[in-house]
């Protein structure tokens, strides 16, 4: 029965060094501990200078995404048991600039999220007196899967296209755009399509498929993107052959 497990954490202190450096910590092994518990143990007792993000510790906030043994994981959902006997390599999420230790700069993702207009767009808002927008369970089912995204950015870390071309809109942003496109209350399809079918939009994607593999919420962004490509291609032909339509 293992009593300890070693974590090799990639540290980066910009005021001291110009390149990241690995630092080893020995952490007690407990069957119900996750990587996040190990990191908290390090911060509380071994090394208070370690910087990292976390919040809900139950897989709904999307803050604790990191690379564990080279794969993007939510550290609050990765049990130490899976990595026995160790050592476990913990690194910041790839494809993002590293500010410090395990903290990455995510304003690029936030800007892309805003760009796809992730809210219900109506041409004309219904007055309150008309009541609610009605939606059947089947209509909800159309987009429900894509609404599960917790913005953890594991898909961006997994996407080689995003790594090669940081201007690519990316899997989560497109999946979230689809969540609104497929919502029967939304009327913003045309607006989002204009944004997403241009350069750096959906057609940068080459269906590597890693995004859907690493998604902790089974959002399947790869599926969202492929379906959106079909819609974009069909719309392209429609605008060419029937330009009088809207």
């Amino acid at each position, binding site marked *: 029965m293992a009593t300890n497990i070693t974590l090799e954490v990639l540290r980066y202190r910009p005021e001291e060094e110009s390149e990241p450096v690995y630092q080893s910590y020995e952490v007690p092994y407990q069957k119900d501990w996750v990587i996040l518990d190990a990191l908290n143990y390090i911060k509380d007792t071994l090394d208070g200078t370690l910087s990292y993000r976390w919040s809900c510790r139950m897989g709904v906030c999307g803050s604790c995404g990191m690379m564990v043994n080279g794969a993007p994981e939510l550290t609050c959902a990765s049990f130490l048991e899976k990595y026995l006997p160790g050592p476990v390599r913990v690194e910041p999420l790839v494809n993002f600039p590293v500010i410090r230790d395990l903290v990455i700069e995510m304003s690029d993702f936030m800007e892309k999220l805003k760009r796809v207009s992730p809210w219900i767009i109506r041409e004309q808002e219904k007055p309150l007196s008309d009541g609610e927008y009605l939606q059947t369970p089947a209509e909800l089912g159309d987009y429900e899967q894509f609404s599960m995204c917790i913005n953890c950015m594991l898909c961006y870390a997994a996407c080689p296209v995003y790594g090669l071309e940081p201007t690519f809109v990316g899997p989560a942003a497109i999946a979230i755009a689809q969540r609104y496109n497929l919502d029967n209350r939304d009327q913003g399809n045309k607006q989002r399509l204009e944004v997403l*079918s241009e350069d750096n939009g959906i*057609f940068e994607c080459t269906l590597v498929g890693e995004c859907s593999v690493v998604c902790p919420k089974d959002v399947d962004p790869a599926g969202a993107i492929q379906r959106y490509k079909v819609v974009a291609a069909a719309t392209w032909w429609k605008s060419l052959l029937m330009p009088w339509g809207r």
Partner: protein
Amino acid sequence: MKRNIDPFWWGVFGAGGVISALVLPVLLFLNGLAIPLGWIGAPHYGDLLSFVKHPLARLFLFGVISLSLFHWAHRFRFTLYDGLQLKHLNELVAIICYGSATFVTLLAAYTLWSF
């Protein structure tokens, strides 16, 4: 709306992918392996020629060849862009890929309609 040509190339890529996946394996197996290796007999020249003369056969073969080449063009262009990171040559690679697919399409049209 500024119309981007990417949806069109992706559309032909998809159509080419479907048709090449469905039809090319059996054609390659029969014509490239089974007949040359003698596992089955080759069709008689005259019969094959009169079959290919049929307008539907010409159209089918043209569609298969042209769409397969455009499928290759789109996919290969992105493979060079991502796989070898030839970003500064992006426009040149696109012109070469789609251009050669267009050239072979024209060649196929000429071959299939000039007899």
